[in-house]
């Protein structure tokens, strides 16, 4: 079994005064069968940190994000979430994560509003009509909330995913190809969301677009 000539380990901290949320990935690796996607990745991120995961196609960017949010189990190592040094269980972590990605679909046969209300409800929260309106307005879907998502364009669906992400008041924001399918105004909306959440979230984004690297304070390059 031959691994990729790749190992990455870094850790950085920023001074946050309250409610410090920490993501620790210790020596994580992932392989599918005999194929090693990545190995020995160490991350130690606190609220306010942001990382751009980059690398060529097939280097494991999406897989790394899925492992970090526990959609996939790592083949080695461990991912841990802490709130002020208290290790969080899966339920607590789930309530704090928002993830926007092209492969994470919303329900086509529900309206935009119904999607927002549903995901707020399964997270255990409650969302008022005013909050729904304000979220839809924030992502530029103010007059389309009552339409079925199946009638939305790709870019509008992507905008709605950001509204759903915001409705979860995330402490950890994962973005895979964050600008995928968006026009210029959609990209401006996403940039403003990232900047708004930067101080209160850990943001991890996977991208191949050089202009999006700047959203991360640090870069994590895979497949080197």
């Amino acid at each position: 079994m031959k691994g990729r000539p790749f190992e990455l380990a870094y850790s950085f901290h920023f001074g946050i005064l309250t409610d410090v949320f920490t993501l620790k990935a210790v020596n994580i690796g992932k392989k599918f069968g005999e194929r090693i996607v990545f190995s020995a990745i160490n991350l130690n991120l606190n609220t306010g940190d942001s990382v751009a995961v980059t690398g060529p196609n097939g280097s494991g960017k999406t897989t790394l994000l899925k492992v970090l949010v526990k959609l996939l189990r790592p083949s080695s190592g461990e991912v841990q979430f802490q709130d002020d040094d208290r290790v969080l269980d899966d339920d607590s972590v789930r309530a704090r994560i928002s993830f926007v990605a092209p492969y994470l679909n919303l329900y086509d046969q529900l309206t935009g509003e119904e999607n927002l209300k549903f995901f707020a409800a399964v997270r255990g929260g409650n969302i008022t009509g005013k909050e729904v309106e304000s979220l839809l307005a924030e992502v530029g879907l103010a007059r389309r909330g009552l339409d079925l998502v199946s009638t939305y364009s790709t870019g509008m669906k992507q905008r709605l995913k950001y509204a759903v992400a915001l409705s979860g008041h995330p402490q950890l924001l994962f973005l895979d190809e964050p600008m995928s399918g968006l026009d210029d105004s959609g990209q401006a909306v996403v940039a403003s969301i990232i900047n708004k959440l930067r101080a209160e979230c850990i943001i991890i984004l996977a991208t191949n677009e050089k202009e999006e690297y700047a959203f991360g304070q640090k870069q994590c390059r895979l497949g080197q």
Partner: protein
Amino acid sequence: MGKSSAGLASKSLAVYVKDLRLELRSRFGLNAVFMFGITTLAVVSFALGQASLSPKILGALFWIIIFFSAMSGLAQVFVREEEQQTALTLRLTADPDAVFLGKLCFNFSLLIIMAAVITPLFFVFTDAPTAGAINFLVILVVGMIDLGAATTLIAAIISKASVKGALFAVLAFPILLPMLIALTLSSEKILAGESLGEVSKLLQFLIAYAIVMITASILLFKYVWQE
């Protein structure tokens, strides 16, 4: 953060209402169930003509129709999530227990609607005796709970496979066999004019089966639902 039962109930309700809404808009499950059920009933009716059937055959025939109709629609609840690529989003945001309970309740609802349509038609087409209708209804409701409890977890397992339809029936059959035998025997006795007291042992078995299946499914579901 502890998992309160009120929180779990409201999350499960959200999943249930969402599935119900999706079903009413797409009618995937209902169409599949009714198409199979009504077609089978029509074929049976034409084949039998004026022939009078014994309670033994009627009981078996009824549960064969219910079993295969259910097999054609119950898996939809998870298959739809996988095919429309919403399963990952749900996995990421929802408590697995809430997902299971919501979908279990949805499958119960689908089975009750299916039984409410197919059962009266069965009695009309086959000229089955209606004297013990209330007792038959009790067996039917317990049977629907058993069927839903035993198949919801299997639906979650097969939703990730490439050949879903055939696999569902194949995987479900050995688990459902004891329940189907008990249901067929109790229905046969009820149709022959016996009281619920006379089938109490079978009824106890069917209730115990539902409890075991629901408990085991809740314990196992998160392992099936995750990667």
